[in-house]
């Protein structure tokens, strides 16, 4: 008789108990120092107060020092804090006329260590001004003649969206500034309530590369006002932020374990170079997402032995312009084990299934996006589909967009594949555009008319397909007017060529005839002489 003994149960229980009791811990202390300085700054002295107007007193004080980092000053009027500032002057406005005010100043450092308060200093505002009567025409003329002597300097610094205007007068004034694109100055208005000799104001929310006019007006302590200056300024132009076109007609040829890539560089005038990036996992999504195989301006590249280690390679070619803007990328996959031509992105997503379904419709249930959501633009003009066909023209690049809000956050990329009836398919990557409003790609211009299929493959962050859908592009030649103009030009060129040829033949014939006549006459003269 065979007997069996087992302690499976006992052993298992023991191991489980050991695991539960075996957690290990470690203590990590995190410390942060906030402003270790404990020494306050020195007292800001001397403090001076100057009445400027019936409503304004200017306060100034000496610079304090600190062993660590002096940060600013606190200004008190009649023991009430009225301002903090990093400057050493302050214009206290909105005061009552003929009233005495007392000021003190404290300095503080970056740790909020505060100095001892300065000794109090007092002064009295001016009496209220006598309101002047309405100006007569002669008074206005007098004021006008006074403008040149009041305004000493004006300086304007502009950038793309703002302008900083600084000016100096030889007397204390308040000011108003109006600006606009035309002389009605309808875009903005500012006015200050401080009497000063040096003024600066910033105008923002301006358009780049635009000329604005402005009017600067002064208000004196006596209540009169007059125009200081009317002039204009122009904001700086925006830098080029437009991405260049992608390369065209990207093809790949396998030669053993090597790959030869060929393409046509974009025709953008500021095109500078292409960068070829390869990755054996997925299409490189940006210019640093993989191995940089080539950089330059050539239109072909031989990638030697690239298929010896990995059986498949994904390529993306990015084009650059002189400003550094980068195209979305033209993509192609090369598979060593595929006996046919290198795979395009369209083949890579097993597009056979989707081709059996209705064009123009989303063929998966993962994402509710289809061809009707795609925006097609040429020359910055949106072209709407007619019967699910988008008609475009040859000779102009095409911008393909899918609105960002229609796509999920975990989206990785979108690849669009375009194929003519007798052409090899060419694929491009759609990337998020600069204002994050859409996934976008700029497709090079079409050279030939005809019907092209356009297929989209949407990948999530795990490079799994979320959706595939397709549509049709109907590429037409130039417009009839453009064609007529071109044909007319061609005819004019032909007529001109014929006329030149006829003239040339006429001149040649005339010369030959002249030469023949002269030679014959010379022969006759010799004959008569003999």
């Amino acid at each position, binding site marked *: 008789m065979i007997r069996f003994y*087992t302690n499976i149960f006992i*052993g*298992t229980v023991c191991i489980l108990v050991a695991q539960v009791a075996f957690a290990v811990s*470690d203590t*990590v202390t*995190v410390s942060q120092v906030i402003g270790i300085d404990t020494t306050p700054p020195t007292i800001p002295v001397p403090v001076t107060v100057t009445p400027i107007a019936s409503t304004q007193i200017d306060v100034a004080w000496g610079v304090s020092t600190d062993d660590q980092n002096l940060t600013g000053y606190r200004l008190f009027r009649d023991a009430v804090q009225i301002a903090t500032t990093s400057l050493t002057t302050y214009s206290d406005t909105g005061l009552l006329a003929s009233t005495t005010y007392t000021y003190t100043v404290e300095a*503080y*450092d970056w*740790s*909020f260590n505060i100095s001892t308060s300065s000794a109090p200093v007092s002064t009295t505002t001016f009496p209220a001004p006598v309101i002047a009567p309405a100006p007569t025409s002669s008074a206005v003329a007098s004021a006008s003649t006074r403008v040149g002597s009041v305004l000493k300097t004006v300086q304007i610094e502009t950038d793309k969206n703002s302008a900083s205007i600084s000016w100096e007068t030889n007397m204390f004034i308040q000011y108003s500034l109006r600006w606009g694109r035309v002389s009605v100055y309808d875009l903005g208005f500012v006015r200050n309530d401080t009497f000063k000799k040096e003024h600066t104001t910033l105008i923002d929310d301006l358009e780049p590369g635009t000329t604005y006019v402005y009017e600067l007006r002064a208000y004196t302590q006596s209540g009169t006002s007059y125009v200081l200056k009317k002039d204009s300024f122009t904001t700086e132009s925006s830098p080029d932020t437009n991405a260049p076109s992608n390369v065209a007609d990207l093809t790949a040829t396998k030669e053993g374990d090597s790959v030869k890539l060929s393409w046509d560089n974009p025709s953008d005038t500021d095109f500078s170079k292409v960068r070829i990036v390869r990755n054996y996992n997925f299409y490189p999504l940006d210019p640093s997402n993989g191995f940089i195989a080539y950089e330059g301006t050539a239109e072909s590249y031989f990638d030697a032995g690239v298929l010896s280690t990995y059986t498949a390679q994904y390529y993306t070619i990015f084009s650059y312009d002189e400003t550094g803007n980068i195209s979305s990328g033209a993509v192609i996959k090369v598979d060593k084990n595929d006996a046919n031509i290198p795979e395009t992105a369209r083949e890579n997503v097993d597009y056979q299934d989707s081709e059996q379904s209705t064009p123009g419709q989303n063929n998966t249930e993962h994402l509710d996006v289809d061809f009707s959501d795609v925006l097609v633009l040429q020359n910055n003009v949106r072209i709407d589909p007619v019967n699910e066909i988008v008609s475009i023209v040859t000779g102009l690049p095409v911008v393909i967009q899918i609105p960002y809000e229609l796509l999920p956050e975990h989206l990785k990329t979108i690849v669009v594949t375009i194929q003519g009836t007798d052409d090899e398919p060419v694929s491009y990557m759609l990337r998020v555009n600069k204002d994050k409003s859409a996934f976008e790609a700029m497709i090079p211009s079409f050279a030939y008319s005809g019907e092209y299929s356009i297929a989209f493959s949407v990948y999530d962050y795990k490079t799994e397909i979320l959706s595939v859908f397709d549509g049709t592009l109907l590429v037409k030649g130039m417009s009839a007017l453009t064609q007529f103009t071109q044909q007319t030009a061609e005819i004019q060129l032909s007529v001109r060529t014929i006329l030149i040829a006829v003239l040339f033949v006429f001149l040649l014939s005339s010369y030959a005839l002249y030469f023949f006549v002269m030679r014959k006459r010379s022969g006759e003269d010799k004959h008569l002489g003999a």
Partner: protein
Amino acid sequence: MRYRSLSTVVSAILFTPLILFSLHIAGAQIMTSTNYQIESDSVNVGGGLSTSTNYSIESTAGEVGTGASDSVNYSLRAGYQQMQEVYISITGTSEVILSPAIPGVTGGESNGSTTAIVRTDSLSGYQLTIKAEGSPAMQKGADTIADYAPVGDPDYTFTTGATDAHLGFTPEGADVVQRFLNSGVTCNSGSSNDVSSCWDGLSTTAVPIASATGSNHPTGVATSIRFRVGVGDSAAQAPGTYTATTTVTALPL
């Protein structure tokens, strides 16, 4: 026909114990189901005295694990398979001094990090958690710096408002849990583990920051824990040295 039936019966009698015996011997191995995993088992047959010319052995059957006995200086694991415990360790952690010092008036940001290397031979992996000893974690007497408080998932970007003064952390490493992975824009979405992204606040409740489902012995896996304090320019944070005591725990699964 009769002889054939008899032959079948005899064969069954002879081979059935052998088949059963083979099955039980084969069962002496690690087994798993949906909810449990047996890491060590054994099946024993018989026992008794075995002799040769020079040796004799009295073997046993049906062994019993007596269990653990611990004293101040020694730990005893008595009995069959009692030494087969799961090994796990944390190394590499150190005190974190955030740098630079932050001016109390102007505010600013400071950073620091520590690395926890977890080694375990647990076939089911491990889980690494972090928790704070106090709430908020960072304190200096009565003065405190708040815990970073994202809404829901961690913030992809560490953001400090003008009146904020807060401490955040983010783990980085191969085993970081999904909550701290990102899609390049949002956290708890995608599979990227971007540097200095996905910031969360400490809590007195242990929060998982890394986990794995298999053994990593003997190399272990490092998880870096990055800390950051942000103080806004209107936070008016009192000066001094603030400290947060945190506990990092590795638990075998």
